């Protein structure tokens, strides 16, 4: 296929009772680029991400990943097609060790099969441990690695979630508010990690963000949503210089 878009969303609609959360949203994410989704609270940004990753089934519309329609597929199927997800609430596996959090992400579906697991047991876990170690060093997770992930600080849990993302083989990652609740220094590191994903690995990145400076620094393109509809979109510098968008997103 010749399209240079990794993800195409067409006319996505989702209604919860009386409220139309998505009112026919169109969006395109260019391959290997970083696209920011901005807009006031309740604009439908997270719902849009849920509809792409399969957590919510849209009422109508299409989601096309690399030319393949993935609308209304199961979340685990969509994940296997190469869509990674950073949840707003991070969602590390709290009771599993920091190691196991990353090792679980390193496993491929063929490793997880019952037969393969019976034959090989923990061998593939041992092999994965070095890889996990390298990833944890790379993102810079501080803290005990053989202890439960719940014991990590919030910032380190975010970094652990990034290590899990780096462990997967993704075409597209969707990050829901990566900088929410983190210290400025960590924000800088997260920015570098997102650049690493998009630049070095060529992964297409979509991210929801409220910090406009972060968006201006990082994003190649911006999609602005309001009340479940597309409000504006285009290259970052253009969109962020339009007064209407600035007014909407800074809540003036």
């Amino acid at each position, binding site marked *: 296929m010749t399209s240079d878009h990794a993800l195409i969303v067409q006319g996505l609609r989702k209604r919860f009772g009386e409220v139309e959360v998505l009112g026919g949203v169109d969006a395109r994410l260019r391959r290997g680029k970083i696209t920011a989704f901005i807009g006031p609270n309740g604009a439908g940004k997270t719902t849009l991400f849920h509809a792409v990753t399969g957590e919510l089934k849209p009422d109508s519309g299409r989601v096309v990943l690399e030319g393949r329609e993935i609308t209304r597929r199961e*979340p685990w199927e969509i*994940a296997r097609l190469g869509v990674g997800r950073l949840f707003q609430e991070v969602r590390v*596996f709290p009771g599993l060790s920091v190691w196991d959090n990353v090792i679980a992400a390193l496993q491929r579906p063929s490793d*997880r099969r019952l037969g393969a697991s019976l034959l090989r047991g923990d061998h*593939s*876990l041992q092999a994965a441990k070095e890889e996990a170690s390298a990833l944890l*060093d790379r993102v810079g997770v501080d803290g005990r690695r053989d202890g439960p992930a719940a014991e990590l600080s919030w910032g380190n849990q975010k970094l652990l979630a990034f290590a899990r993302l780096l462990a997967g083989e993704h075409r597209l990652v969707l990050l829901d508010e990566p900088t929410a609740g983190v210290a400025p220094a960590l924000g800088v*590191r997260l920015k570098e990690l997102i650049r690493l994903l998009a630049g070095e690995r060529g992964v297409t990145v979509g991210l929801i963000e409220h910090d406009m400076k972060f968006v201006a620094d990082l994003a190649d393109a911006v999609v602005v949503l309001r009340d479940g509809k597309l409000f504006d979109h285009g290259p970052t510098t253009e969109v962020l210089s339009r007064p209407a968008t600035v007014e909407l997103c800074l809540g003036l």
Partner: protein
Amino acid sequence: MRSPPVEPRRTQRAEAPKPETWPAWATAIAVLAILLAWSPTYVSHLLVVLGIYLLLAYSLNLVTGFGGLIVFCQAIFYGIGAYAYALSRLRTGAPGAQVEELLWTGNLGWVPGILLAGGVSALLAGGIGWICLRFRGDYFIFATLGFQMIVFVLLYNWLELTRGPFGIYGIARPSVLGWMAHEPWQYALLTGLWLLALLPPLFRLYRSPFGLSLAAMREDERAAKAMGIDTNAIAVRALAVAGGVAGVAGAIYAGYVTYIDPTSFSLRESIFILTLLLLGGGGNVKGPLAGSAVMLALPELLRFVGLPDAVAANVREIFYGALLAALMYWRPQGLAGATSIR
């Protein structure tokens, strides 16, 4: 393009040297030898019972300890295994009258009979799991409770297949190459062989990517799915494995007592098996062992306290209840578990 800071932040300490385990093993074997010399029949009997409950607790551990799914129908998988084994071997040795009146009886050998029991229970557990997993959380638990009731009522009322409350008697004891296991110590030995055959692969599964995926599902199902883990599929497989092992436990039970009726496989039994896990703890190998050992040793020890027969059973129940409540308060992960079950 800059890359993130790569300075290693190693905080893990040098691995602690593993404590030597052989003194513990040597002590356990020595104690066992002394006990066997003291009363071979009684101790062998306890070992058979312990073996059966270890199979039940370890199999449930895969689903409940690792997968975090609370199952209230493990006794059904156990019971179906017992009935499958009993019926499949009934023509070898049982009195003819009941063979005539039953819908199906077989003439299988000992090992094929046990394998059939495991297979039938695995299929049943997989099927029940597939249905129950349409529900999540508390509803899943209630669905398994429902199947406990349904299958129990079938066992109790389908006279043509199970003789219902009359039970099946005269179940053939195993014979291996012409060697009949009449004595309890012989049966304990054969039970031990089944444990040796089944537990190592089960423990391997605990430590495999499959086990890790189950644990990920237990910890956060949405995050597990977002990682590409088909949580329903692995849960059904885990239930089938657990059902299969429980079925073998049922077959060992039926071959040991040579008489079965449905009351051995009631809700009470399911709760007892779950209690082994709650008490000992799940998600590892130590927990179910601790739970089974304590739950089976306690009544035996209480026997020596010399309570009058009339109150002994009630005192035991009160003791269990108090113990469980205290444990849930102070040690929700059980005596030796890796994770708290709820």
